[in-house]
């Protein structure tokens, strides 16, 4: 039986992530944990997150999770969700500007102010993802919609790491991958069929670009 750990750094709603994984991972043991040793021991790891990046990074350091995430990336599949995507980049403009984990190349920026009211912030709702080939998109229609809710976006500087692009005033990275790592800006656990399919693909993925 494979074990899947959802990293808990106190950001609230992990129930949905756990429920969605249980729904697609027949018989897997799914646990929520803030203990690095449990994260490192799992077969695969989910790195979710919502709220503000500053408190997320603080919690990562307070629990000793920074090193655990580093170890996981080199050894087993890791799925980042929302803030779990943004935290992997070099720097974020949120919370007055903050250095992040620096695993992926690029920066996290705030959406431009709505101005004429055309674009609301947060970017909230179902938007399309223009997919670049990756095994985790298997069985999901090109351009399928996923549920987003965020005010900051990823501006990648390494095109090879971009596997999904979405338009919202700007064109931003909505999915990124490198080796065992796959991370998305949207919430697959809230994206109905397409989201569940992506989670199912992750649960059966061996990592390292498939």
């Amino acid at each position, binding site marked *: 039986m494979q074990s899947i750990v959802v990293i808990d750094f106190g950001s609230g*709603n992990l*129930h949905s992530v756990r*429920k969605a994984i249980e729904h697609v991972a027949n018989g897997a043991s799914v646990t929520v944990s803030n203990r690095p040793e449990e994260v490192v021991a799992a077969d695969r790891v989910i790195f979710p997150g*919502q709220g503000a990046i500053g408190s997320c990074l603080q919690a990562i350091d307070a629990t000793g999770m920074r090193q655990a995430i580093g170890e996981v990336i080199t050894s087993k599949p890791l799925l980042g969700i929302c803030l779990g995507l943004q935290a992997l980049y070099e720097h974020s403009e949120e919370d007055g500007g903050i250095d992040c984990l620096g695993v992926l190349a690029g920066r996290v920026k705030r959406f431009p102010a709505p101005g004429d009211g055309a674009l609301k912030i947060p970017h909230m709702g*179902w938007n*399309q993802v223009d997919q670049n080939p990756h095994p985790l998109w298997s069985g999901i229609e090109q351009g399928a919609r996923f549920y987003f*809710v965020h005010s900051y976006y990823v501006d990648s500087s390494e095109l090879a790491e971009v596997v999904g692009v979405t*338009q919202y005033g700007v064109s931003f990275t909505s999915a990124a991958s490198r080796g065992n790592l796959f991370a998305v800006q949207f919430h697959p656990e*809230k994206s109905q069929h397409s989201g569940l399919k992506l989670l199912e693909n992750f649960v059966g993925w061996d990592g390292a670009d498939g």
Partner: protein
Amino acid sequence: MGLAKRIIPCLDVDNGRVVKGVQFVDIRDAGDPVEIARRYDQEGADELTFLDITASSDNRGTMIHVVEQVAGEVFIPLTVGGGIRKVDDVLRMLNAGADKVAINTAAVAHPEFVRQATDHCGSQCIVVAVDAKQVTGGDTPRWEIFTHGGRKATGIDAIEWCRRMADYGAGEILLTSMDRDGTRNGFDLPLTRRVCDTVEIPVIASGGVGNLNHLVEGVIEGHADAVLAASIFHFAEHTVEEAKRCMQAAGIEVRL
């Protein structure tokens, strides 16, 4: 192509049971929130909103159980409103599986509560529900906030209030016209448009939907980011999918 406009069915829940008579022909238990949520999910609802109208606070725990059950089966965003008065109430709903909570009366009574809730839980999960009623007509209409189901005036200007709630960190406004609610005559479009054009956060239009064209008007004339309706879906007059096809035919981007 880009962000789709959302359609959100709304369910009133009393003591753990859906009320206002949901009438799907082939549903076994018309009062079961899980069964109804599953149906709307199948029809393509973009989100679901549950309003807890349970009168007694002793029975509030029932709603937690409903949210847990629905969240275990339906994988679209869930908003829960009714009786949310403290940060603890917000956390309890989020931990049960809600994605957002709607705050109404408590925001009017203690506006700082909205700031506390967004500081603690993030803007993305705090919806401020605003019940507005027109108080002056003519060329310069004015709307005010009412509480207690539209019976109690507060004297607060609705447009200013929405702006203030956005400044306090609310992630979204759920705007209900108390003049239109239950009439089936369509949204209060001037109100909807004023609020949507004023705040920089998404706005859900609510109150008055009686046919599918009203949903179209809410987006095109009201500038709403999402439309919420109850009775047209509950009485099986229309499915969510029909509503989306109608909006798409009017040139509105939807998720189909």
